[in-house]
């Protein structure tokens, strides 16, 4: 039996890699993928908890996360397309319209 801590460590690592990617990459598509990474990291821990606590709600939550991720990906990518059309760039640090 694999201890739950292993799953959680894995989850933390994946999540942190996602965080790092999100904060450091310039390419907006990779940033989006970093978000997916974070979501997956969380999902791992959720499923692991579900298994460990013998509670089905963890898995239900993962289901909803996936649903929201799908929605987010659809909208986000649409935004990227429309952004690229207008600004002709996929780098987030080229977009600073809200600069104070």
């Amino acid at each position, binding site marked *: 039996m694999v201890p739950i801590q292993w799953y959680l460590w894995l989850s933390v690592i994946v999540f942190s890699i996602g965080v790092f990617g999100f904060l450091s990459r310039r390419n907006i598509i990779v940033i989006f993928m970093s978000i997916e990474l974070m979501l997956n990291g969380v999902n791992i821990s959720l499923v692991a908890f579900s298994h460990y606590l013998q509670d*089905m709600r963890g898995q239900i939550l993962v289901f909803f996360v996936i649903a929201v991720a799908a*929605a987010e990906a659809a909208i986000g990518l649409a935004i990227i397309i429309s952004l690229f059309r207008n600004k002709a760039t996929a780098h987030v640090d080229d977009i600073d319209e809200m600069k104070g």
Partner: protein
Amino acid sequence: MLAEIFFAYFAVVIVLTSILVIASRNPVHSVLWMLLLFFHIAGLYLMLDAEFLAAIQIIIYAGAILVLFLFVVLLLNLKEEIKGRPFSRIFVIALVLAIGMAVVISSTMKLLPPGPVGQYSMDMIRATKGGNSSIIGRVMYTEFLFPFEIASTILLVAIIGAIVLAKKRLRS
């Protein structure tokens, strides 16, 4: 022992592909690394007796979302972007933050609740006809019916939103 070996394999691949996803210069490579990542996560789910989610992970994440990513990457002409530097100016801060985040989150592990508290034990799932999927369905359509409906609405909104946002402006 076998379980630990399998877990080790999955974990190593997951971490490596994760790093490759964010490290690849070319987003197409990232997407492909991600594909690999998702398959391994699905494997992890199977190890945790979550067959339904493993299937969903493959079908939706790998099948739908990643394909969407791939389309977008291909749709955008990213030649110029690929040549520039991949990381932004807050690279170091991001690294510190990510590590800090990992440290802080992992420090909560000692707060783990003791022992199983739910009713869905392995034996109970095995005894149920249809197994994991059947139980998820039951819970989903009873206890979580309302959130489920909301999720469907969110998806509908997302569809419409995506169409509106992505379509070209009609010349009026």
